[in-house]
């Protein structure tokens, strides 16, 4: 189990990570989510032993890792751009850790791993001839070959294009689950985090503002800023919040965060709004509506409906797509 206690890291006196406490049980995947520059990559590097801690401790199964160099930690690291060794073939990249420890049957093991990441037969290629997605798969196979106690993933998918990212995220989850790998991933993409991770820690300005099982964090973001970062579209307060909650059949609360798809066009809906704009996507129609007592809000409609701009529409609220604060959260 990985435990971080009061971990702080600074560069030349400028704090990058401040007093971070985190726990990661064996076999689980923790995603550290935060905007760029929040210190999440630094945190990852500190765990890997690549940055010295200013204070606090990183420990594994209760043993403090202070003074343990990177190569003795047994934590493999997967960079955003893979960092494949350009002078080695794919097979030699994947077999790198195995050769270091003079493991037997390197060839077979490498073939297995390449099979696992869907690149069987790529062994003799050079990294320069691979696409971005293929490189990341090789990097993943290389990291898994080390059989790390902990796999560290630094924005593993963010260099890839959207469709590929989605597919690879699912693959990543399957592979990590299948191998029972404990992993710490940092990312700025909440969907990627949601797809891959079991647990989520949200980081902002060097500190962890919230962490827990991913569904829990998702359902109950600690504050509006976190909610927005997690993909909630808007936050409503006071009367507007009460109006939305009432429509969802829930008691009033000081504030509520609303996902884009929380409001749906529905003939039986309890709210009425005027359509301000409408945009078709492959799966649904996205609307911006003006709801009296609430203000501007987002809504979705099925593809076969045709809400026209300027026309009123009835809207239903999906209670499961709201995050409610029972005490007033800090303003943004």
């Amino acid at each position: 189990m990985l435990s971080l206690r009061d971990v702080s890291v600074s560069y030349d006196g400028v704090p990058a990570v401040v007093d971070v406490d985190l726990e990661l049980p064996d076999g689980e995947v923790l995603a550290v989510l935060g905007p760029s520059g929040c210190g999440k990559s630094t945190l990852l590097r500190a765990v890997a032993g690549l940055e010295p801690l200013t204070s606090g401790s990183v420990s594994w199964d209760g043993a403090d890792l202070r003074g343990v160099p990177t190569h003795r930690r047994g934590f493999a690291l997967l960079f955003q751009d893979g960092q494949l060794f350009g002078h080695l073939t794919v097979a030699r990249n994947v077999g790198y850790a195995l050769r270091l420890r003079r493991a037997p049957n390197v060839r077979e093991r490498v073939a297995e791993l390449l099979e696992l990441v869907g690149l069987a037969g790529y062994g003799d290629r050079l990294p320069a001839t691979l696409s971005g997605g293929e490189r990341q798969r090789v990097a993943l196979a290389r990291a898994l070959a080390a059989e790390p106690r902990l796999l560290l993933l630094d924005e593993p998918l963010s260099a890839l294009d959207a469709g590929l990212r989605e597919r690879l995220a699912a693959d990543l989850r399957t592979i990590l689950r299948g191998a029972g790998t404990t992993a710490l991933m940092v990312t700025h993409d909440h969907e990627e985090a949601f797809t891959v991770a079991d647990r989520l820690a949200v980081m902002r300005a060097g500190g962890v503002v919230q962490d827990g099982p991913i569904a829990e964090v998702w359902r109950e973001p600690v504050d509006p800023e976190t909610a927005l970062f997690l993909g909630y579209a808007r936050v409503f307060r006071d009367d507007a919040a009460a109006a939305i909650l009432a429509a969802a059949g829930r008691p009033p609360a000081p504030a509520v965060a609303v996902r884009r798809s929380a409001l749906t066009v529905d003939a039986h809906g309890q709210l009425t709004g005027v359509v301000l704009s409408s945009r078709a996507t492959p799966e649904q129609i996205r609307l911006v509506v003006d709801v009296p007592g609430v203000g501007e809000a987002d809504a979705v409609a099925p593809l076969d409906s045709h809400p026209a701009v300027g026309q009123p529409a009835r809207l239903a609220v999906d209670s499961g797509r709201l995050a409610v604060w029972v005490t007033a959260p800090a303003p943004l």
Partner: protein
Amino acid sequence: MSPAVSRIARLLGVAAIPLAILGVFFALPVVGMVSRGFWADGTFDPGAVLGVLGRPRVHRVLWFTLWSASLGTLLSLALGLPAAHVLYRRRFPGVSVLRAALLAPFVLPTVVVGVAFRQLVGESGPLGFLGIDGSPIAIIAGLVFFNASVVIRIVGGAWESLDPRAGEAAAALGAGPWQVLRTVTLPALRPSLVSAASVVFLFCATAFGVVLTLGGLAYSSVETEIYLLTANLLDLQAAAALSVLQLVVVTGLLLAAARARRTPDPALSRILARPRRLSSGDLPALGGTALLGLLVAGPILALVAGSLRHDDAWTLANYRALATTGEQQALIAPVTDALVTSLRTAFDATWMSLLLGLTVAVVVTRRSRSVSERRVRSVLDGVFMLPLGVSAVTLGFGFLITLDRPPLDLRDSPLLVPIAQALVALPLVVRTLVPVLAGVDDRLRQAAATLGAAPWRASLTVDLPVVARPLLAAAGFAFAVSLGEFGATSFLARDEHPTLPVVIFGLIGHPGPMNYGMALAASVVLASTTAAVMLAVERLHVPVGSF
């Protein structure tokens, strides 16, 4: 003309000016000298020349040259690498001064370094107990003294911009520091390592003063042998045989180096890595650097101490005397004038070698479209290294006999000295620039072209920012080479304006304690001028990416 052929023609067109200069100032003189040996007494007699190669003495000389140069190269690499790591990947107070100072040995005249070295290791010196005076060990130490700085500069420049994350990824996979070095860092540095090794090997194999002075005459290298045969015995047949041998060996080496330089993926990602602070993990590297520091500092300290002694007392008298023409009128010009001449010559040699070197580097690093095009480029790459591998004596005498009538009546031109020095510096410039330019992703140039940039403009936008710092390093090299160059310079006409190394040579060659002290003082001035120029160049801080 097919597109491939026209591409090669265009390529040779760009390379025409450097090739012409190389042809006139290198190929012509060397061919002139060698053919004098082959056409002894007016008849073509290759048998006699080849017969020379059968002499046991020639075999001994060749063997000594090969092993001493190889060992010198290996040790320069072994000591230069840790220093390159410490000086280019770590930060600590005074690192830039140290970097600048490291080039100082490179320019010191061999005759003076020989004296300084021998004062340390000679029978009566503080290190006399080692008993290495006049042994091959002293020769090798001398070679390392001069050449480790070449390794540091060429490899350090590449190391500085190497992305550290590949090494971190390896460490995370369980590779210890040594394994990271061996399996990731050194392979990534390979082009620059091979570059540095081949240049250093050429310097070592053609070392002249070091072998004679420190070897106590018991050892001869191909270079000293050619000198003896040409300058003393006028045995041009034997000299031609050895020159051809030298050329063959050098060409073989260059071919091997070109093969070894080739990497599967030259498009390394270049970044400006933040140098880290020193830590306990750097102890081995620091140890190597300290060892090199001792080797370099020892003779230099002996030199400085000697320059401050006169009549058994500490004094600045030797330095004050530099503005005069010596105790007994031993000097034609005051040392201060000679320094100005040296600086002006070095300035010319620098811009010439940079201009030529940049052209050559750009030509050889463009991605080739066909096998034959690649061959042409790699041949060009090697051809410009050749001047380093040929004896200065051969070149000097060759100038005299081939550039002696119109339209090439150039043997008295004041530009001959800077041109000769530029040719000596050219390989260093090319070898500093090529690894960096080869790492530039060709797609960047293509991107610039699609945005409407003409080829030269694309080069300005894409290559210049990348190459700016290495260009400065190369300029420093060329300048230092020129300031310290003695071999070729001393064979060429010097008119009334001798360069500083020539003056130092004159001073130390005459009796009188003042002359000796002045020679040492002038050497210190030469070395510190070089270091100061290097420091200024480093301080220029080219704003990378501002073009």
